[in-house]
């Protein structure tokens, strides 16, 4: 739980620090004084949907950090047998990185107002993401064929659980991606989909980061298991 504690303490610290900064040196009971001064007090310079995504990412961070904490704590038990992750995961990781890159190129194109490039970027990002998900399923298949059943060992169970949670988050992202791509396909002007593309990009980068952390932990669990 130490990891959870540190990460969530950091998140809470940022929230509390930001709110404190908004609230010191303000004397709300004094009429007028703060009417003009209150100008920027508490306004987050972000589009509401972006802030909404930010809050959701905090929730998702909490979820993954808790899963990782559980992973470490369970690892301390004597019945744990590290699992050898399929080498195909490197290919999957590559696909997810390419998806992120494509998303980034799409958002750059959207900022320049190039509709075609946006479309190509989105299509590539979606394609690589589906490739990643298929690759993950294939990895499951391989592990299962090699006898790494979820019930056989907690290391296996955690592998399936963590990859499934990550995959489900990616599927949720792909739902939004579908809607965005459909809009672009129908030829809606770029300015109107720019926000959606930006949101997708941030989400994809987040999921890439989560995957890199999970991949590292799943591939090399031993150095992280301090107490074993």
């Amino acid at each position, binding site marked *: *739980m130490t990891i*959870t*504690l540190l990460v*969530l*303490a950091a*998140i*809470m*610290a940022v*929230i*509390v620090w930001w*709110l*404190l900064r*908004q*609230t010191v040196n*303000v*004397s*709300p*009971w004094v*009429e*007028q004084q*703060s*009417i*003009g001064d*209150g*100008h*920027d*007090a*508490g*306004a*987050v310079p*972000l589009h*509401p*949907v972006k*802030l*909404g995504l930010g*809050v*959701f990412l*905090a*929730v998702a961070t*909490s*979820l993954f950090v*808790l*899963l990782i904490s*559980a992973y470490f*704590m*369970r690892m301390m*038990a*004597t*019945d*744990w047998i590290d699992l050898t992750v399929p080498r195909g995961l490197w290919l999957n990781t590559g696909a997810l990185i390419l998806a992120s890159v494509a998303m980034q190129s799409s958002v750059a194109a959207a900022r320049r107002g190039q509709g075609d490039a946006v479309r190509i970027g989105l299509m590539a990002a979606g394609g690589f993401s589906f490739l990643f998900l298929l690759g993950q399923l294939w990895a499951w298949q391989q592990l299962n064929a090699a006898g790494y059943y*979820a*019930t056989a060992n*907690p290391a296996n*169970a955690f592998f399936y*659980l963590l990859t499934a*949670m990550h995959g489900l988050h990616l599927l949720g992202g792909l739902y939004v991606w579908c809607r965005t791509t459909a809009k672009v396909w129908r030829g809606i002007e770029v300015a109107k989909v720019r926000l959606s593309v930006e949101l997708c990009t941030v989400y994809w980068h987040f999921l890439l980061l989560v995957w890199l952390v999970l991949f590292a932990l799943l591939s090399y669990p031993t150095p992280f298991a301090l107490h074993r």
Partner: protein
Amino acid sequence: MSYVAHDESAFVPPAEVEEVELYHPKTWIGKYVWSQDAKVIAIQYGITAMAIGLVALVLSGLMRLQLGFPHTFSFIDPGTYLQFVTMHGMIMVIYLLTALFLGGFGNYLIPLMVGARDMVFPYVNMVSYWVYLFAVLLLVASFFVPGGPTGAGWTLYPPQAILEGTPGADWGILLMLVSLAFFIIGFTMGGLNYVVTVLQARTRGMTLMRLPLTVWAIFMATILALLAFPALFVSAVMMTLDQALGTSFFMPALVSQGQQLGYSGGSPVLFQHLFWFFGHPEVYIVVLPAFGIVSDLISIHARKNIFGYRMMVWAILAIGGLSFIVWAHHMYVSGMDPYFGFFFATTTLIIAVPTAIKVYNWVLTLWRGNIHLTVPMLFAIAFVFTFINGGLTGLFLGNVTVDLPLSDTMFVVAHFHMVMAVSPVLAVFGAIYHWYPKITGRMLDDTLGKIHFWVTFIGTYAIYYPMHYLGILGVPRRYYAVQNLDFVPQSAHDLNVAITIAALIVAAAQVVFLYNLVHSYFKGKPSGPNPWRATTLEWQTPETPPKHGNFGPQLPVVYRWAYDYSVPGAPEDFIPQNQPPARKPA
């Protein structure tokens, strides 16, 4: 002397969020069923939560009948008793209080109090309610599956929660876990709305430090819930896998009814960590909104500005931050490292400091105030009493050495009912009596309200005060019947009878409340727009109840904080937040 007209808007910053096109429903169903209006969603949340809460109330009555008169009721056996305990606890904490405070009051009050037309994501808000309703229906379904609902205790500790012998170990626990997962998904959708609306949709002039404390408290409680509920989600998913697929996340190697089970090496303590990492912030998720509501009720009905507004805000922030580092004080008997226990005892005692600041500030707000003993005020004062009582026994249980002998006794039951059951419920009642006129345009009946208050207030003390003594005697909680134990004298059994009678009377008093709610909706005295002469924006709407869009063509502009009561020299004893400052002599 000449007065120069002062352009008020010169003081006011530009709008931070542009006006958005509201979704306008065209049909009755679009308006009242698949509604995207936060006020309708709030009422949907409120009615659903109260309906399922009534189920939990009946369950508690049945539990008390069994404890007061053991072996009298043939339909209560040890298994069903445990099911009653479990479902009562889970429903009250999650499906009633969390949903009512955040989904109900959050949805109704946040947009109105910050001066917004609606939540920022109305569609997501609507989905949030329907997912919540689905979670409730799954929970209700567990009463009708083979084996009945789970009887694992509201903490759902493994391994017993999913082992043969615990009631509902097949279907009941599965439905409970899935229902919790859906509740959390639904809540997350709502929670995103509450946070972003408070941060982004405030009207012009409504700075953070001009927010009423109700909004501050619901805002912070939502942040806690968003970060803490994932812990419950993770534990629910992992336990579902243990139960359905046979993984060993939490399940150790064990022999059940003579058979070696397939589990090995899992850690029940891991579950406890995850559960309480959610479970302790949950206490504040329920109590913080009560804090905020009570602060506003006390200030309004004592006609006095809240004492130490800034300190109140910081106390809310401090409690929110600290609530994440106290969870293991629920696990003193789990065999953890003594230093660990020492750390958590210390943090637990530290959290008493901001809480005490709030209590002092309430009392100081009342000090020399113009106290109107209206029904909402009675409930607010009762909240302060009850919360102090429950908080003080928290100091007992927060200390490891005192906790160990009291652990799993009736003392714990008495403590947490005082602090996070009765107190928040008193705040809920106060809030309903206070805002009902805005929601319906009619006042609740005063006499019935006072009957409801006094019976509930005195009755809950008759229930929970004696329970402390039972706990100190060592009477264990969750036991179907306590018999043939040398340390439990006859007087303890008599006390149990008395508690049961008090509990049934309090339960009956809630019928008066429900009758009042329904009766006043049709026959209540018309309230007018601002019956309590309050300053906050929800009382300044052009229509009562507020229409879709809340504020008519123009959003209000805010010039002052929410607590301008009895300002010297002002013509009235309250100045609404949207009243421009007096024109100044040039």
